[in-house]
């Protein structure tokens, strides 16, 4: 029982790290980047290449995945994404689906279609007893890393000067601009960090979520669910949404294996019907 809860939390945490960047940039620029998963895939594949082909330690792969995805993010933001901010949501959706297709085919071309498998360092394999629950060491590791990241993010957003500017920009971009806040710069930075986090999530998840070229499409749906349940623009909303989804998904499959797959979609539609602005958001702002 506890093990299930634990697995659910680990899965949810991973989802959170993967999706949080998308949530913030969505709230910030009202821009929907469905190709967010491509950054996660970039991080995941970088880990695969570094570990399996170059023999570099897994622990170095994590920061490398973050930096790689972040750089990729900022380059794309500066060259392509910025042209789309004033276009319709439909254009943005199509554009990012196009990017997903390109990323999928490019990875297929470079790395092959089969699933990539990451062999974790031995100390992360195995299981330990905690509070009477038998839990995987790696999942513990994932929870620890994601937990630290969440705390760090929360600190940056709530306590730092950058954080307050970010919050102001998300609340009302026009006013923030009027106050002399460099919203474009903040956005570029947030986009980079968001992509970097996705890359890190991809690296962390490579051994749990299975990396193959269809990753961005497969997980796009999960990201959308995290946003629609958690709402954009804060990080606590997506955080609780991710945990809820992780636990509901794992517990659903455990207790009622026959309909496990349904549960998360049903939650999503129910939330969108009853609380279109998300379950964990303050009342609608606009």
């Amino acid at each position, binding site marked *: 029982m506890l093990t299930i809860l634990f697995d659910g939390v680990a899965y949810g945490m991973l989802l959170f790290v993967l999706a949080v960047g998308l949530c913030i940039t969505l709230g910030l620029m009202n821009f929907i980047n469905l190709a967010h998963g491509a950054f996660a895939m970039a991080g995941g594949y970088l880990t695969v290449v570094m570990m399996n082909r170059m023999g570099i330690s897994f622990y170095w792969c994590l920061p490398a995945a973050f930096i790689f995805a972040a750089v990729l993010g900022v380059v794309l933001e500066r060259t392509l994404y910025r042209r789309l901010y004033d276009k319709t949501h439909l254009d943005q959706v199509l554009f990012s*689906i196009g990017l997903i297709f390109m990323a999928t085919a490019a990875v297929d071309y470079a790395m092959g279609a089969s699933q990539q498998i990451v062999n974790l360092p031995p100390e992360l394999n195995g299981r330990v007893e905690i509070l009477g629950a038998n839990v995987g060491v790696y999942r513990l590791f994932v929870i620890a890393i994601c937990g630290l990241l969440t705390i760090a993010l929360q600190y940056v957003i709530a306590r730092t000067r950058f954080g307050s500017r970010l919050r102001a920009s998300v609340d009302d971009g026009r006013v923030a601009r009027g106050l002399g806040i460099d919203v474009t710069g903040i956005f570029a930075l947030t986009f980079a960090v968001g992509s970097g986090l996705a890359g890190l999530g991809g690296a962390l998840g490579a051994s749990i979520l299975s990396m193959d070229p269809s990753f961005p499409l497969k997980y796009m749906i999960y990201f959308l669910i995290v946003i629609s349940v958690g709402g954009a623009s804060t990080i606590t909303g997506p955080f609780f949404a991710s945990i809820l989804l992780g636990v509901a998904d794992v517990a659903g499959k455990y207790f009622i294996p026959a309909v496990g797959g349904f549960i998360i979609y049903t939650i999503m539609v129910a939330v969108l*019907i009853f609380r279109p602005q998300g379950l964990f958001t303050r009342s609608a702002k606009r």
Partner: protein
Amino acid sequence: MSAIDAKPPAEAAAPPAASGAPAVSPAARLLAGSRWRWYEFAFWGLALGSYFVFPNKLMLISEILILGLLALSIDLTLGYAGLVTLGQGAFFGVGAYAAGLAAKYGAGAGPWSDPLLGLVIAAGAAGLVGFVTSFLVLRGSDLTRLMVTLGVALIVEEIVTQAKSVTGGSDGLQGVMSSNVLGMWSFDLYGKTAFWYVLIVTFVCFWFCRRLVNSPFGLSLLAIKGNPLRARAIGMPVNARLVAIYTISAAIAGLAGGLLTQTTQFASPDMVAFHRSADSLLILIFGGSGHLYGGLIGAVAFRIMQDFIGNITPQYWLFWVGLVLVLLVLFVRNGIVGLMANGWRRLTQKSHEGKNP
């Protein structure tokens, strides 16, 4: 076509002298917007002629027409009512399975097993699902709509794969036997019957949609798309109109799904899958929304592109499709039909200038 024909921007800039010319009554001018044009005859003539030009490709042409019909159904909601959705695959799939089940269990029941009745069932089932879910798209922003419709499509897909006893689950629906159309024409291997059947049904649906968008009802949809706040303020029952068009659109999508099942004699979960919804939307945008022809032309272009690229790099054609999409969004407004309309306008304007001085 009324939307563009009735308001060529060139006219706005025309000197007042033009209005001094023999006056066409405003009503006649509006009516003229819904008249059949030469290029429309040309389009359908080409579709008809493809039977003789590409006798080897009849199955592919049928598939393109079905895809075009699906995109056309999205055009009604997106291009006319301005509803942004990403779940049309759900209705396509419901129609596909409804027609499949009708053919499977209706087989041998004389006139009751006729494919045309199957189409009615497919449209009815999809329309019903559309009607029920239409209430979800009445609220919220474009983004909410995209996600709700996507969610609905995913749930339908889950149901299809889970309800094995009815749908056959992941293996698809087996044992679909298509009876002869009107008891006379059987579906042959060359796809001849399928071609005529699909062409005629598609044309009838198109003709219906064309009447619809040129009617006062269609005009009111454009009003909702243009400015829902204003539309409400003049007393328009905006929600009822949206429910109506969403339901009609779902029914047509279901009809397209039914056509696919009947001509291929099976239904499988990938008829409901995400890529159906995404592809059909891409096709519409590729072709250009709000012109009715966009979906059909987009389907042709999309398939030609897929074939062309697929022949060069069968494994990586997805990359080029993605690239085309990205470029399309960045540089081309209003798809292929938009490009053609612009080109035509420039051409005619030039020739005018040539004559006048």
